[in-house]
């Protein structure tokens, strides 16, 4: 005969204890988030403070620029081209249903210049360079190289972070333009050579709908993204836990946080730029 399982006794005050521990964990989490925001703000303040001194460490700047700009250019161009082609593939069916496939150029190019170009370049930068920055600085933290800098009277934020932030700010617009350009080329090539859309109409509608402001809006967004990626990645690298796992976690946290912030900023900067556009131009005509 199978034995009857003993009924687990629940202590009388278990519910109260559970509620207390839940409250404690909420407070602890709130405490951690508050600390993170405060610490990150101080980090940004130090970057701005050291950045304003304009004594850029050229060696670190050139190396970071090479990593961010030169080495990222092919992958950003390639993904931009394929995104342009994918946009052509996806929009063709919808537009052909209503006989407006000749206007595809306007939609593809506007989407690329305002949204996908900057977001794509920033995402590639966060994945390729941001996590590498976090891993490199994290390793420097773990192996006491950052302490070594401090011990020699060199400020590690000035030496390691400021050049990376400057390089990201300077080069992300270039990467964005590259993603835009390659996306436009890819979208046009697929539309014209595969879907047989007239080239003149394709670009004529693009010219009508895509303005200089759209291009500028994409560049402005990219500056926010570039600064965010460099700052967040360096922050996580600087605060990496010990060991290989700590460095790995820092690299992952850098990418995930950067990516989420890119999307959040994309929304708010996009809304702000639109407000600005209609403030200066209530009729909604082209500013440029």
């Amino acid at each position, binding site marked *: 005969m199978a034995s009857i399982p003993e009924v687990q006794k629940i202590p009388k005050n278990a519910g109260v204890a559970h509620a207390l521990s839940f409250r404690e964990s909420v407070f602890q989490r709130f405490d951690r988030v508050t600390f993170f925001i405060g610490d990150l703000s101080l980090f940004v303040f130090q970057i701005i403070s050291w950045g304003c001194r304009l004594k850029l*460490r050229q060696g670190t700047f050139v*190396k970071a620029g090479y990593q961010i700009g030169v080495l990222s250019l092919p992958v950003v161009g390639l993904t931009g081209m394929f995104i342009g082609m994918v946009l052509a593939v996806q929009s063709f069916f919808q537009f052909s249903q209503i006989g407006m496939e000749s206007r595809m150029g306007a939609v593809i190019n506007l989407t690329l210049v305002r949204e996908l170009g900057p977001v794509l370049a920033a995402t590639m930068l966060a994945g390729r360079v941001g996590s590498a920055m976090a891993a490199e600085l994290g*390793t420097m933290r773990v*192996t*006491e*190289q950052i*302490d*070594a800098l*401090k*011990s*020699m*009277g*060199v*400020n590690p934020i000035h*030496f390691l972070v400021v050049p990376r932030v400057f390089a990201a700010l300077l080069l992300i617009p270039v990467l964005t333009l590259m993603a835009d350009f390659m996306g436009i080329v890819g979208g046009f090539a697929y539309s014209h050579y595969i879907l047989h859309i007239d080239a003149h109409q394709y670009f004529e509608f693009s010219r009508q709908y895509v303005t200089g402001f759209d291009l500028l809006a994409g560049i402005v967004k990219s500056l926010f993204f570039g600064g965010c990626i460099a700052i967040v990645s360096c922050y996580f690298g600087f605060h990496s836990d010990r060991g290989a796992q700590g460095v790995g976690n820092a690299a992952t946290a850098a990418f995930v946080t950067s990516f989420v912030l890119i999307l959040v900023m994309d929304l708010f900067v996009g809304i702000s730029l639109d407000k600005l556009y209609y403030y200066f131009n209530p009729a909604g005509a082209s500013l440029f």
Partner: protein
Amino acid sequence: MANSPDTTSNTNHPFSQHLVETQKLNMRFGDKHILRDLTVSIRHGQTVAIIGESGCGKTVFLKTLVGLLKPTSGFVLFDQQDLGILSEQELSSLRSRTGFVFQNSALFDSLTVAENIAFPLMHTSSNSTRTNLSINDQSQLVKQALREVGLPDTTLKQHPADLSGGMRKRVGLARALILQPELVLYDEPTTGLDPIVSDIINELIMRSRLKHRVTSILVTHDMKTARKVADRILMLYPLQRLNEHESQIIFDGPPSEIEHCTDPRVQQFIQGDAGSRLRELNIV
């Protein structure tokens, strides 16, 4: 012997004042209390070895002396300047008067040996005349520093990853000494090295002291190093094992006295005897 007055200095410094002092130094990491009320004075030219079990706070103490870690409470005075009230710039300037040899050397991976040694010359905002030299003169200094630690010129173009542990330690020593600092801090300089290389490092520490008349503070587990190099030994004990009223410094005196110290905790450490610890750890 705890916190006994420092009578062991054998320097003839004209001012014979303390170069480094700590007063009521406390350090906590969260709930963990690492250092408690440490009051230590170190004179110009003295070589002090800080010994003690792993986790007793030796490295933490060393790092607070140059402001790499900020104490929870208490004071650190370097050349009579309170580190706690110095601006970042003043602290940087003061740190350029010190050299730090890290446990794992902390050489910059991305730089060559030559660039690592030349780093303080090129990037430190020091008042030293050595920072204002031409590139050629700096290059000569780097070569000289490398020869002083017994490494050939062929290592100049190598990266730290290509060097053995002992070679990395020596490059770290050359980097720490290139600006002729007044104070050199060594964090476990001989840990992980074979006995011969360890003795080479010991000799280099002694020679740098004789040649440049630097004040040295070294953290070590190695009693041979402590006996050979130091003229004062300071032993810290983990706070978890102490009562509230007990001093964390359980020995402070010259190496010759440590053998005769009657404190069983000191004897246990210098003899490397696990003793009752095995039972505490349930190792039968």
